[in-house]
């Protein structure tokens, strides 16, 4: 056992580091931040749609609320374990002489990205758009599906 000189400040530094790490991971997982290494493209967006992610034995399912977004304006891409959903919600036609009383709904460009586990069938990702909701279905590969193994007891 070695003796270590007590340094109260060290604890503080550790705390700071942990804190930064927490927020970096948080932002990355929720699509707020891109990886530092791919700074080639800066994504500018105004809002992030709310999402639910579901999992069952066969699929992952991502559900996004995109009311009023045109199907044509949504782009989904997948590369290296990361799915990216981006698009634009256009503002309603601005008519001259119109007065705004309440603007609660966000508009403009949106972007979300999610890291997926590697065991997915990336060529079988499907998406449909209905009633202002985007539903992306990502099938799991056979390896990732839960299996039952019968073990014989002698």
């Amino acid at each position, binding site marked *: 056992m070695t003796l270590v000189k007590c340094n109260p400040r060290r604890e503080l530094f550790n705390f700071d580091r942990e804190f930064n790490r927490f927020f970096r991971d948080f932002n990355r997982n929720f699509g707020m931040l891109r990886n530092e290494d791919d700074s080639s493209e800066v994504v500018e967006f105004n809002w992030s749609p709310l999402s639910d992610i*579901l999992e069952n034995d066969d699929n992952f399912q991502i559900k996004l609320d995109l009311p009023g977004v045109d199907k044509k304006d949504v782009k989904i891409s997948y590369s290296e374990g990361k799915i990216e959903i981006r698009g634009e919600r256009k503002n309603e036609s601005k008519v001259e002489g119109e007065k705004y009383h309440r603007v609660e709904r966000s508009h403009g460009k949106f972007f979300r990205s999610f890291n997926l586990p590697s065991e997915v069938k990336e060529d079988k990702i499907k998406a449909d758009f209905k009633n202002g909701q985007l539903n992306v279905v990502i099938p799991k590969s056979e390896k990732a599906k839960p299996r039952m193994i019968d073990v014989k007891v002698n």
Partner: protein
Amino acid sequence: MNEIKSKETVEKKSLIDEIQNQPYKAPLVNITEDENSFFIIADLPGVRKDNVELKIEENSLSIIGKVDFDKNAKSKFILREKRTGNYLRSFKLGDSIDQEKIEATLENGQLLLMLPKKESVKPRSIEIN
């Protein structure tokens, strides 16, 4: 601004029976006005056309949207940001709105309401002879 005032507290009685005991949330809205009408645009993602109801009682207008909840109970949530619940929001209508001529369309998860103003309150210019 006084024409349309949102009524944040909603009496349970005004709800359609079906969603009476289920949780609800207020849809986000934009309210605009031009010379002839008021417009309300409400976000109702995931609501089918036959699950939307508009109710006018005296001077209050309620937007009710029923959400088809997932029957697939086998799935488990990994991320859950959306609040579950039906949509419900009420607005008070001012005297200047012609209640008989209210029109509504649902498109792509968005409800668009047109509330025309009464002829008597529309601006008009008077010609001078």
